[in-house]
């Protein structure tokens, strides 16, 4: 029977069995470190390949008439105007609705609610919603906004699409709001209470202004997530070909990612290049939004 020398307490046999072999272990260390760097480099290389691929295919196709034309059966005449307008419509509606709802909910959970069953239920719910695939929200939107509330939303309309995406981004905004509020030290709240302010007065006058940069950053990131979403909008039936611009909340609509999807899924090479040009427009919009978010964070965020 092979007994463990460490347990048996025989130092001589222990040292003879334990091989330090430092150079060998350091060699494996080195390989391991290189492997971790390789993983990072591969991820970055893929990002670079993606960007270069899109730019090479799309840049020659990108010009002023591409931005101001309607879609067409001829790839060289196809433009992105309705998709761009649709994305702007959707973005504005989402921002107007989701900001007050998300911030209000975040304030309630962080500042007003006690640790009771209601708060816990809502909290577990928000965590769960973050794991629900976006296409499921599309099914919800299809049934509720497109079918049940058709008289209000006008069916497969820009309003239905935006409402669906509002539900999708609300958990993100709520979480961002809570984190921003949590970073404000309690001493500021206590000072407000000491002056006789109610909880709402403290939040409105003291806490919210300080937390606003963080909240705005989170909201913009959530918005940029929303305008990149394709699946839920396809499910609620956003059109892939519309020759006019949306002019009210009940108009049919398309958005940039849906237009890109439509072009990629066609067999002709020319449409693929058009799709690449569309991707460039989409990515520039997203990049501008992200840059705004980072700017807000760096410029206005106070550290306590």
């Amino acid at each position, binding site marked *: 029977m092979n007994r463990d020398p460490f347990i048996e307490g025989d130092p001589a046999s222990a040292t003879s069995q334990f091989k330090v072999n430092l150079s060998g272990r350091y060699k494996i*260390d080195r390989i391991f470190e290189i492997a971790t760097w390789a993983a990072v480099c591969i991820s970055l290389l893929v990002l670079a390949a993606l960007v270069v691929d899109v730019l090479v295919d799309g840049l020659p196709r990108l010009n002023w008439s591409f931005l101001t034309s309607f879609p067409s059966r001829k790839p060289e005449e196809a433009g992105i105007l309705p998709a761009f307008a649709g994305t702007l419509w959707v973005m504005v509606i989402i921002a107007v609705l989701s900001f007050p709802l998300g911030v209000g909910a975040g304030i309630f959970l962080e500042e007003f609610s006690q640790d009771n069953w209601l708060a816990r239920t809502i909290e577990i719910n928000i965590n769960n919603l973050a794991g629900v695939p976006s296409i499921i929200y599309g099914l919800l939107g299809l049934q509720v906004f497109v079918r049940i509330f058709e008289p209000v939303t006008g069916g497969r309309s820009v309003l239905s699409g935006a409402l669906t995406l509002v539900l999708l981004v609300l958990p993100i905004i709520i979480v961002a709001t809570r984190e921003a509020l949590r970073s404000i030290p309690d001493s500021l709240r206590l000072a407000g209470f000491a002056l006789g302010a109610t909880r709402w007065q403290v939040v409105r006058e003291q806490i919210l202004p300080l937390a606003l940069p963080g909240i705005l950053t989170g909201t913009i990131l959530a918005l940029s997530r929303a305008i990149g979403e394709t699946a839920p909008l396809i499910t609620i039936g956003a059109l892939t070909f519309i020759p006019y611009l949306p002019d009210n909340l009940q108009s049919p609509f398309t958005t940039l990612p849906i237009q890109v999807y439509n072009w990629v899924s066609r067999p002709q090479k020319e449409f693929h290049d058009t799709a690449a040009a569309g991707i460039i427009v989409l990515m520039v919009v997203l990049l501008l939004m992200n840059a705004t978010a980072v700017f807000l964070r760096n410029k206005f965020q106070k550290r306590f």
Partner: protein
Amino acid sequence: MTFESPVPDDRLWKPNRKLSQWMEGVVKFIFAAFAFISVITTLGIVLTLIFETFDFFKEVSLWNFLTDTKWTPLFKSAKFGIWVLISATVLTSAIAIIVALPLGLLAAICLSEYATSRVRSLLKPALEILAGVPTVVYGYFALLFVTPLLQLLIPGLQGFNALSAGIVVGISIVPLIASLSEDAIYAVPRSLRDGAYALGATKRETIISVVLPAALSGIVASVILAVSRAIGETMIVALAAGQNPTLGLNPFVPVMTMTAFIVQVSLGDTPAGSLAYRTIFVVGMTLFVITLALNIFSFWFVRRFREKYE
């Protein structure tokens, strides 16, 4: 004797406490209602899926749904074997995790343990950009860059295939695993590392046998979240994996995942109330149940295995 104020009475500050408190109550009620929207959303999802699923199973037996080996809901002789779609989803998600787990975990280790804080502050935003790329763009990349590249390596690979879609889904979830695992690894206290070093362990040995086990619950949570993201991933598989419902786990042929099926039906002109219309809700229900089960498992795992340090 009455107290004489030095200033005239109408210039004194008179707080209207009743109004403030009433206002507070109103605001609290409204904000609570906003927070309750998340509960209503969940209820809405569950009820929507249950109602349509219920109607679906009035026409198709659950037994056929679980045992048929064909998925042809839009044909005259419709067959509804859900395993066809599940097998495709499992296939693409498995390929995705095989790609994303080593890349994401190693990248997390690199960022937390090897990179200097300067390099780290450059790399993290780069990974965030990778996370922010819309999935339709990844779909374009899979179909028109990765697939042709793979066709050079694997002759006879079809234009639509599970392999290329799975790889790109994997790339799209690398940032998720990397950043969440990095948070978990970074949170492991320094004293544990110092203890391992004092015992003579090298840096790699410390990471593998001390730091990673200590961060296990966070890492597993991040991986499960990534798996459920891969299962629910839609645009990449709809564009690059094809629309061909076949049962099996061959990564070189076109397949149809659950999400790709929902997209296919949504793009067509399906009247509400028809059987085909209900099918997408049944598939959605299956998808929802799978991701919910993963969520619950993750929740349980984190509770069970979380290491707390002061």
